[in-house]
């Protein structure tokens, strides 16, 4: 098991947002957590990354307990986040944003190879490489955020609401890229999404989160046909 979360609780002040969730992600899997706005999906990803503290529970990554480690140590262990709303560094150029993703990794030849690969994956970034990230469109910023997370060759990619605010056509493109990364490069991905249909389509397994608790879990193709989920999340 690459990532194993047990009984994770997250609170903001006195208000508990996540009430003890457990889930796991195996090496090479694409797993999604779906749920409505405010269900606690982003909190869970941020707790795995170390950006919000967990109140209790355990987070194991590659057999090591990481729930008390600082975010930068988790990043160095091989976890990378594509944050909600991209959060690119606005006053750094596209190229500099990508180089932040390589911070602490000193391997020139690999840097070149990774850049070449990412530019072929997202050609628009090559065109914009000298521009400040603030000048990019929403979709371009989202692509930059994905590239910034991929450039270090992570063991686990956390993807937070990548479809938010994107045109449907772009959502499809981004999801195709994620699916290909998983299938062709064997990249392990944990996706949290409001867009339940798209997530169920590309992921192997899914968890359905409701107000801080996991209500359903299982193979995505099974969940997709479950009448309760079809009604509540797919609008069918």
């Amino acid at each position, binding site marked *: 098991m690459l990532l194993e979360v047990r009984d994770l609780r997250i609170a903001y002040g006195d208000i508990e947002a996540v009430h003890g969730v457990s889930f796991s992600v195996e090496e090479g899997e694409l797993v999604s957590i779906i749920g409505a706005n405010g269900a606690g999906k982003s909190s869970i990803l941020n707790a795995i*990354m170390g*950006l919000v503290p967990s109140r209790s529970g355990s987070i194991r990554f590659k057999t090591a307990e990481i729930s008390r480690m600082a975010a*930068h140590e988790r990043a160095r262990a091989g976890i990378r986040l594509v944050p909600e709303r991209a*959060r690119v*560094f606005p006053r*750094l150029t596209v190229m*500099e944003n990508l180089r932040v993703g390589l*911070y*602490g990794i000193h391997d020139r030849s690999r840097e070149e190879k990774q850049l070449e690969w990412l530019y072929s994956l997202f050609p628009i970034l090559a065109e914009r490489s000298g521009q400040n990230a603030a000048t990019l469109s929403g979709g371009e910023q989202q692509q930059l955020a994905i590239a*910034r997370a991929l450039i270090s060759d992570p063991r686990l990619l956390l993807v937070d609401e990548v479809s938010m605010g994107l045109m449907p056509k772009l959502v499809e493109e981004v999801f195709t890229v994620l699916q290909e990364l998983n299938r062709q490069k064997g990249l392990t991905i944990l996706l949290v999404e409001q867009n339940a249909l798209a997530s169920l389509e590309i992921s192997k397994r899914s968890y359905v989160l409701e107000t801080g608790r996991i209500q359903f879990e299982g193979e995505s193709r099974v969940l997709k046909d479950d009448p309760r989920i079809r009604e509540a999340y797919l609008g069918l």
Partner: protein
Amino acid sequence: MQLFLEQMLNGIAIGAIYAMITLGLALVYGILRILHVAHAAVYTVGAYIGLAIFSATHSILLSAAGAMVFCAGLGFLIERFVYFPLLKYPPYVPLIGSIACLLAIEELCRLAAGPYILSFPAQLPFPSFTVGGIVISSTLTAVYCISAGVLALLWFITTRTELGLAMRATSQDMAIASSMGINSHRIISLTFMIGSAVAAIAGILVGIYYNQVYPSMGAVPAYKTLALIVVGGLGSVPGAVLASILLGVGETLLIGYAGIPLPRDALAFIAMIAVLLWRPQGLLGGRG
């Protein structure tokens, strides 16, 4: 004409010294959004430590090196023990902490060295020039060379090194920077150490330039540098440098040369009010 040029040269030198104090403040504001008023106390301590080492060794190089190391340590401690524990409170709380720190350090200097104005009789190892009847003293040459060197080095660090990239990323989004593997707390400490070491150089240069070192020498820079980072654009280091040099020249020319009957130190605040009225983001400030 000759007097004008001489005043101009002095003005640029004073501006360059302001810049070396102000940029520490701009760096800290950029990364922590704190008004680091106590920075002026670090500058005072730099002058005292520099003078003490110079009196003992008569080596200005040792004096500068010692003061830089000492002030870097002081800046580190202020961040670790004053600002870091206060960061979770609204911004006025660290500001009050900072003012307390400024006063406490100023009084410590008074206790340790006495309330007197001490002289700093160092000769800087720089040549003096006479160009077309205008004398450029060795102190002036030193201020130009040292400040240009310091600014060039800082420009190089922030724009051309991985450390600089990490500093800029941290100041734009600390959480995301740390999720990219950047130890943001270490970056903050380094930012304080760099800014404080530069303030030590400024303290020594001012001590030698005016031949004066005294406990409250940081009082006027403490609020003047605040005005300067507002004029330059909060958090913008190039803006802070530009505002500093303009102010140095402006003070010297308008008040020293043109004889406008205003207290010299008022000009920074007139500039600040003007900027707030007509260009609230500052000379080189971007959004927010």
